[in-house]
Each structure stands twice: as C-alpha cells, then as structure tokens.
C-alpha cells in the first residue's frame, strides 16, 4: 500500500496554478474542517479499519482459508483504495483536486503524511494536525471527546457494521474509535515510540526537501515532542532543531501589520506571508517549550544544547535576545556540560561577528556584566574567560580617519589654490566649480546607494559598538578587582568571615593582560594602584599566615605583578617607568612559592616578564635577585630551578658589575653599597646587600642530579669578570620550565637506571631520618619502583627480626629441653 501511495506521491510535480489553489484552500481550512469534521473522521477510519482487520483476522483463520481470504481482501482493498484515495483527496489541504473521477489523483506533496498516519497509532492526531495547523489542539481534543462519548452508545452498531465498509458517518466514527482502542491495546509502548520516531524522521526529511510546502507539519513535530516519553521528547527537540537550523531564512521576519494585511497582494506574497508567519509561530512555541524544559533537570542539557546551537546558527533571527538571556544565565552553571556549551556558544558569537553584525556581542557582554554584578563576582571563571576570544579591530579607526584627513587637507589645498587663482580665472572657475559640484553630488548619491545596498556595516557604527563592548568588558574587570580588594580588606580588618575566594580574579587578570593595550590612560593610575594593593597580598609584608584566609594566593599575586608589567609595557613606550613596588613583591613571592601549591608556569612567566624583558635594573636590585634566585633554585625541583637559573644567567650577562658575586671573596666595602652585610630575609631588594655575598650556591648546583641544571650552573660559574662574553639570546625561563616539566616523566627512567644503586644505599642509610632532599628525589623517581624497593627492604628487615626471634625461641626450647633432661637425669639419680 505504501509503495503504491508513493507512486501516487511522486507525480505531483504540478503546474504552479494547482499549488496556488492549494494555498487558497489552506487559508480557509479552519472553517472547512469545522464544517466537514465528519468527513475527516471518516476517511481516517477507513484506513485503519482495513489494517486492523488485516491484523485481527489473519490470526483467527486457518491456513487453508488464508489464501482465499487474502485474495478476497486484495479485491476489497483495490476497491477500498479507490474510495480511500478519493476520500483522501477530500483532505482539506488538497480539497479541490480531489474530485477527479478516474481515480488518478492530482496529489500534492502533503499526502505523505496521511500515509504514515495509517500506520501509526497517533493517526487521529496526525491527520487532524495535518488538516489544521493552527487550531489543531482544540480540534483533536474535540474529536477525541466525541469519539469517547459515542463509543459506548454505538458499540453494538459498530460491531455489526464494522465489517462492511460503508459510509455512514457516525458508524465510522465509532468504528474508528473502536479500532483505535484495539490498536492502542495491541501496540506496546515501544512500538508507539518507534512509530513516532519514524514520523519525526519523515516530517523532518519532508521539511528539509521542500520547506515551503511542508511548513505546516512543523507544528506536528512540536506536538510529538510534547509526549511524556523522555526519549521522544529529546528526539523531537533535536530534529526540530535540525529543521529550524536549516529552514530559518537569513533575515529577520517582521510580521505584516494589520494595514498591510488588509492590502491586496499577489498570491506569491500571500504564500510567503503564510509561510513566514507559520514558521515564526512554531518557532516561538518551540522556544517557549525549550525555555520551559530548561528549568527541568531531566531535560536541561538537551534544552540548553538546542538553545545554544540555535543561537550559534541563527544569531540574526527573531527572539535572539531571549535565547541570549537563557545562555548567559547558564554560563556559570554548576553543570559542567551546560557551562561548557554556553561558553562555547558565546565564544563563537564573539568570533563570528559577521553573522549578526556585532550587536549580539554588545548584548552578550552587557548581560554578562549584569550577571557578574548580580552575583557579586561569585561565578565560575569560565564565564569571564569567554572574553578572551573577543576581537577588537584596531585598524577600524585608522582606516576611517585617514580618508577624512586627506579630504580636509585637499580641501584646504584647493582653497588656497583657489584664492591664488581667483583674480584672473574667476569666470572659468565658476564653470568648473559647477561641474565639480555636479560630479561630487552624483558621486555622493552613488556612494549612499552603494552603502545601503552593500552588506558591509558602517564603520562608524562598528566602531561605536566596539567601544561599547570594550567599556562593558572593562567595567566587569574593574568590578572584579574592586570586589576582590574590598573583601580582602574586610577580611584583614576582621569583620568578614573568610570570603569564598576570588574565582574570577585569575581570568580577569588574564583578560586585562590581553587587552592591556586598550586600557584608557585615565584608568591607568587606578588600575595600577589596585594591582599594587592586590600584589601586596596580606598587609605590608608582615602578615602572618593565619590572617591570610581572605587574601590571594601566591599565583594570583604573581599574576598581578605580571599584568602590571604588561599594562605598563604596552602603553608606555615613551616614558620608561620603574615598577619598584612590584619588584619588591616578586622578591618576596619567590620565597613564598611552593612547588605543589602554586603554579610554576606563572612563576616562570613572572621571571620572564619582570626580570628578563625589562631593560635596565639597578645593580643592587639585580644582585639581590641573582642571590635569591640561586638560593631558590637549591630548594625546588629541576623545572623551577632551571627557570631560575636561566633568569640568573640572563641577569648576570646584562649586569657586568654583578659578576663580582662570582668571585670568591666576600665583597663588602664600597662595592656592596651602603649595606655592609647580606641580609637574606630583607624584604626590599635594594637593601638586601646581596653584593656583599658570594654565589656559593652554584657550586652545589653543579652537582645537581639533573644534568641540564648542573651544566647551566657550571656555565654560569664560568662567566667571569674579564671575558666579556658575547650576548646571545637564551631560552626564556618559561621555555626552560616547560621543557623540564615535560621531560620529567621521560627523565625518571634515566634516573632509575643511573642512580638506583646510589639511591638504595641512601635509602638504607637514611631511612630513619628522611631529609627534604631525599624525599624530593623519591618523589621524582618512579613511585612504584621506590615502593617495591622499600617493601623489599622492609621485608628483609622483618625477616631478620623474625629470624632472630625464632632463633631465640629455639634456644629457649633447647635450653628447656636440656633442663628437662638434666632434671630427668637427676631424678633417675635420685631413684
């Protein structure tokens, strides 16, 4: 049956006039359906009946009878089908072409739907949906209610008349209801859902192939997705999403006003309007559904996924504000999947500004700003991280300004010229002027038209939007900084009970670092003072660790220093400013660094930005940093000490005077400046008197277990005062750190081979007092290996002790045996 129908379906490449007829009908279809509601029910019944009978009867009849039965049925079916098809044609969608007498049907594309409807349990719904897109719900309910009401009354009649396929409407109603009931009983839930899935797929493909003709079945899809079954809802939402992504036009739909509707328009326009309004209304319903489901935990992910991909695919279309609002609301959701989705969507919005012309960017940034404000800066860092993908086109302003200048200049030039030539060529000039004006006028007109026609946006407009975005972004950043500072001061003053950290600070600092070249010079002073206060961390360098709950971690403070340097560097090439405070902070932070707790990458970056990139340093300060870095590299792992040593070498190469540190006499006197002795714990690099000390650490470091560290230590030690070595670019501390930290794993194997003997000795010797050094080595080497060896060792120890115990026991027993024997002997003797 399906095949034949498909044949029927295929022909409908119809002349356009038929289609127009259709449209007319469908416009009136509400009224039509109301009138002919029985007809509709009737035709539905016919289809199902034949099938159900097919199903029910075959089961009853014996095999012999089957053949004849089938033949009979075939005949009947052919008969039926003619009627059937006729009846199908009554379907209001194609109401007019129906009446062809010969049975060859002038079918439009829609009939696919009824075909499937025959197979499904939801046929009643489906067909009625098909008939009437707008008022479908009420209709469906109505017909069902009718069915139920009549069902009891007419059951007997139905049984009698059910066999014959006759045309009394009421009977048909009841028989349909009857059949429906049976089918519903027969079909398991699985089958129902299965059929729904097929239905979804079919409508989907139909819509994709010819959206204009099938636009009405959109709402049916929506209907399907309203079922209770979780899987069906998900599928429905997703397939609707796919359809919408495909069929939504590249422009914004504006519904016609009443005045416009009243006007007489051509059929094509009418059709278009109908299409658009249907699309829009279903889209709106779909979105409402999504927003509703987004609140339910079971559907949240699906709904968010749909919303996100819709926003990503069609940011220009209607209702984007509401989509955006939902996405932004979920941007710091606790659910990882949801948050990642939302962030990715916002990022892609930022990246592909061409799709929506930048308006959505501004909106998104603003709404995120509002979110940050509302949540008092307690959000997930991802929500701020998205700004990193913002793009600001700096050439925009320049490109626009240049032509203006040129024009004005040429005007001036012209004026001057005119003034010079005025006396003798006045008449001539007038003519020329008139012509020129004409030309320029036409030129302007053409320009205006071109601008209107071209897709490109006005540069001024884009500039304005960029400025807005930028100011919103910086507003967020400054708000976060301020908030961090406030909670910190509160915490130190004691009125605040341990703030919950500053989740946004790191990404905020990253953002400021990235957009540092765009900071307004007027904000600069405030920004720097905030950064200074934040970098200072707990109080003025004498804060004890217990009141540090509200203050920042070492990494965050390092980050503050880095950002300050970046801001300075990108803005102030003209004036070379020395950031003394931040150097003092770094000097202290190096001591506070702990390898496990803080991020080594940040430290390496700080070393790079602050010590390597800066052009000059005071001798005192450089010496202080050299000394401290050397001390530092003694205490930590290979990666950290490598980064420190690279920086150290760099400093030594730049500051020739500091190479006095390499000489083997404690300097002091005039060389060491005003401070006679080295103060290892001083907080100010300028007052540490490091020049009075000697870099003895290098000697120890040259015996470092890691070959590259020991090489570089030797290398540095061989830098001398006399040989002025050629300055060559080194690897940056960051690179050194990254290399070694990557190398860690592969290097461990080497260590095991080279040092296993050595280490075992150490473990044996020092097991009672595990030193820091020992523990570090142990952590570096393969843990499993160490564990194995330790366990071997302890097994051995235990065995030995066990042995001793057994031996003593043996001794005791032998002794007691001997005693017993002696006792026996004595007894014998006594006897």
């Amino acid at each position, binding site marked *: 049956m399906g095949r034949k129908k498909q044949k029927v379906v295929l022909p409908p490449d119809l002349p356009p006039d038929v289609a127009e007829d259709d449209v007319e009908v469908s416009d009136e279809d509400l009224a039509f359906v109301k009138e002919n509601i029985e007809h509709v029910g009737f035709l539905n019944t016919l289809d199902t009946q034949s099938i159900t009978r097919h199903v029910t009867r075959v089961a009853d009849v014996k095999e012999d009878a089957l053949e004849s039965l089938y033949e009979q049925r075939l005949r009947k079916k052919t008969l039926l089908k003619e009627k059937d098809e006729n009846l199908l044609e009554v379907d209001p969608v194609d109401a007019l072409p129906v009446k062809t007498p010969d049975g060859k049907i002038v079918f439009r594309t829609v009939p696919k739907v009824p075909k499937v409807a025959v197979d499904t349990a939801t046929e009643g719904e489906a067909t009625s949906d098909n008939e009437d897109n707008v008022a479908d719900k009420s209709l469906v309910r109505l017909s069902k209610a009718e069915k139920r009401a009549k069902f009891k009354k007419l059951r007997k009649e139905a049984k009698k008349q059910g066999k014959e396929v006759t045309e009394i409407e009421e009977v048909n109603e009841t028989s349909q209801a009857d059949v429906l009931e049976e089918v519903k009983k027969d079909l398991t839930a699985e089958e129902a859902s299965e059929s729904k899935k097929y239905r979804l797929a079919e409508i989907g493909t139909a819509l994709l192939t010819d959206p204009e003709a099938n636009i009405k079945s959109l709402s049916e899809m929506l209907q399907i997705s309203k079922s209770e079954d979780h899987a069906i809802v998900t599928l429905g939402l997703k397939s609707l999403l796919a359809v919408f992504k495909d069929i939504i036009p590249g422009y914004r739909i504006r519904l016609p006003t009443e005045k416009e509707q009243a006007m007489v328009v051509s059929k094509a326009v009418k059709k278009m309007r109908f299409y658009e309004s249907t699309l829009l209304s279903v889209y709106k319903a779909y979105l409402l559904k999504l927003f509703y489901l987004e609140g339910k935990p079971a559907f949240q992910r699906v709904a968010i996924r749909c919303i996100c991909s819709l926003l990503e695919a069609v940011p220009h279309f209607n209702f984007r504000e509401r989509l955006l609002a939902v996405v932004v609301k979920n941007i710091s959701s606790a659910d990882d999947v949801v948050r990642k989705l939302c962030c990715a969507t916002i990022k892609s919005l930022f990246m592909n500004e061409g799709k929506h012309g930048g308006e959505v960017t501004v909106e998104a940034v603003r709404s995120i700003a509002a979110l940050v404000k509302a949540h008092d800066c307690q959000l997930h860092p991802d929500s701020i991280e998205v700004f990193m993908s913002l793009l600001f086109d700096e050439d925009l302003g320049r490109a626009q300004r240049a032509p203006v200048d040129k024009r004005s200049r040429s005007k001036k030039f012209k004026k001057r010229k005119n003034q010079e030539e005025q006396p003798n060529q006045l008449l001539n000039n007038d003519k020329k002027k008139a012509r020129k004006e004409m030309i320029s006028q036409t030129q302007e007109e053409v320009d205006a038209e071109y601008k209107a026609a071209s897709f490109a946006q006005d540069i001024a407009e884009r500039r304005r939007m960029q400025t807005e975005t930028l100011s919103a972004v910086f507003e967020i950043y400054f708000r976060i900084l301020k908030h961090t500072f406030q909670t910190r001061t509160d915490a130190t003053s004691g009125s605040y009970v341990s703030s919950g950290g500053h989740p946004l600070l790191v990404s905020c600092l990253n953002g400021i670092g990235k957009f540092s070249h765009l900071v307004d*010079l007027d904000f*600069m*002073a405030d920004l*720097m*003072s905030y950064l*200074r206060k934040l970098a200072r961390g707990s109080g003025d360098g004498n804060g004890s660790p217990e009141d540090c709950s509200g203050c920042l971690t070492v990494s965050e403070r390092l980050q503050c220093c880095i950002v300050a340097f970046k801001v*300075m560097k990108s803005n*102030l090439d*003209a*004036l*070379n*400013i*020395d*950031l*003394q*405070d931040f150097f003092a902070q770094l000097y202290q932070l190096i001591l506070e660094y702990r390898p496990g707790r803080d991020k080594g990458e940040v430290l390496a970056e700080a070393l790079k930005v602050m010590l390597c990139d800066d052009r*000059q340093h*005071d*001798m*005192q300060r450089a010496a202080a940093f050299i000394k401290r870095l050397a001390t530092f590299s003694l205490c930590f792992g290979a990666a950290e000490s490598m980064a420190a040593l690279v920086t150290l070498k760099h400093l030594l190469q730049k500051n020739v005077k500091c190479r006095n540190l390499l000489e083997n006499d404690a300097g002091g006197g005039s060389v060491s*400046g*005003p*401070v*006679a002795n080295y103060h290892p714990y001083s907080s*100010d690099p*300028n*007052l540490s008197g490091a020049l009075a000390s000697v870099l003895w650490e290098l000697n120890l470091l040259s015996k470092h277990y890691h070959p590259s560290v020991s090489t570089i230590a030797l290398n540095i030690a061989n830098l001398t005062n006399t040989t002025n070595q050629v300055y060559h670019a080194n690897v940056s501390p960051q690179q050194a750190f990254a290399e070694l930290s990557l190398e860690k794993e592969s290097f461990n194997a080497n260590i095991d081979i080279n040092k296993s003997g050595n280490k075992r000795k150490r473990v044996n010797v020092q097991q009672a007092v595990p030193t820091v050094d020992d523990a570090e080595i142990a952590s570096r080497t393969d843990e499993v290996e160490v564990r194995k060896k330790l366990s071997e060792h302890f097994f051995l120890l235990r065995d030995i002790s066990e042995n001793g115990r057994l031996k003593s026991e043996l001794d005791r027993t032998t002794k007691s045996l001997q005693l017993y024997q002696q006792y026996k002997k004595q007894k014998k003797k006594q006897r």
Partner: protein
Amino acid sequence: MRPLDEKETTQVFEKLFNFTGNNLKNIVEAPSHEGPESNPGRYCFRLNKNRVYYVSESLVKRATNVKRDKLVSLGTQIGKFTKGGAFHLTIQSLNLLAANAKHKVWLKPTAEMSFMYGNHVLKGGLGRITENINTNDGVVVFSMSDMPLGFGVAVKSTQDCRKMDPNGIVVIHRADIGEYLRMEDEL
C-alpha cells in the same frame, strides 16, 4: 654640639621621610661598626653650628673631647638650619638618601650635565622614572648607570608626566654633586 630638640627633630625627620618613606627606619636603626666596641652602636643626629650631622655614637663620645667652638665637623653632614629656622638638606646627605630612596628618577646622559649645573629636570631628560610618584614627593636623581647625581622635588606625578610636553619641568632641583665644585666654600 648638642642633640636636636623636639621641634628640630620633627623638621629633620619630615624632610627625610619625604625622600625615603618607610625606609627612614633603616636610617635611624642602622648599626654602626665604628670604634673599638664589639657590639655595634647606632647612628644619631647632632647639631653643631646650625648644621645637622649624622654620626655614630662612638664618634660622638670621642668628639666630646673637642671644644665646641673648635669643632668644625663630625660624621656626615646632612643639612642645615637656615637663619629663619627652616631645615634644608644639603648635598652631603645624598649617599644616605640614595641608598634608601623611595622615588627615583634616572637621567639620560645628555641631561646629566644640565642637571649638574643646577638646572631643573625636564621631561625630555627623563630616562626612567619610578611609578607612583606624587606631587611634592622628594626624588633622588640618578644617572643611567645608577650613580646618584642629586635630589629634588617632584612637580608632576608619574601619571601626569605622560601627558606633558618634553620641555615641562618634572623635578625641581634642590641639590646636585656639581655643588662640590661650584659652592665649595659654602659647604
């Protein structure tokens, strides 16, 4: 020779604080390793003939042996009281200030000479400047090779320096090492 009275002390300390900020503590508490005593003494301020000296305690003890009107100088002179009663830092205090300076300015080599002839520091001559200088802060002037050249008072904050034209004055001259030659007799 006598210790400073309360009023004089505040005057001196205010001036020094203007240049050194919290590092003033280092100046006052710095241990002195002069004299035969094993445990280091402190430095103190002494007034002699309207001039203020920064002297180690052991030296003060020994200077008591000299008659007051015969005593020309002791320790390091750091400033003098004018007849009107105001306190001025003199160029001899430069070493002390430079070691503890809070605000610094580095001069380009071309501008060094001009400064050492007693001129103010112009923006064009700035090689480098510490951030966070405010108006009226005391500033120590260095050459690019970190040699202290003198000191002065900031006219503009670091932020304002950015917007200035190259001929604007950044630091007003107070004292420079050129005075050792120019005003040899007065010192």
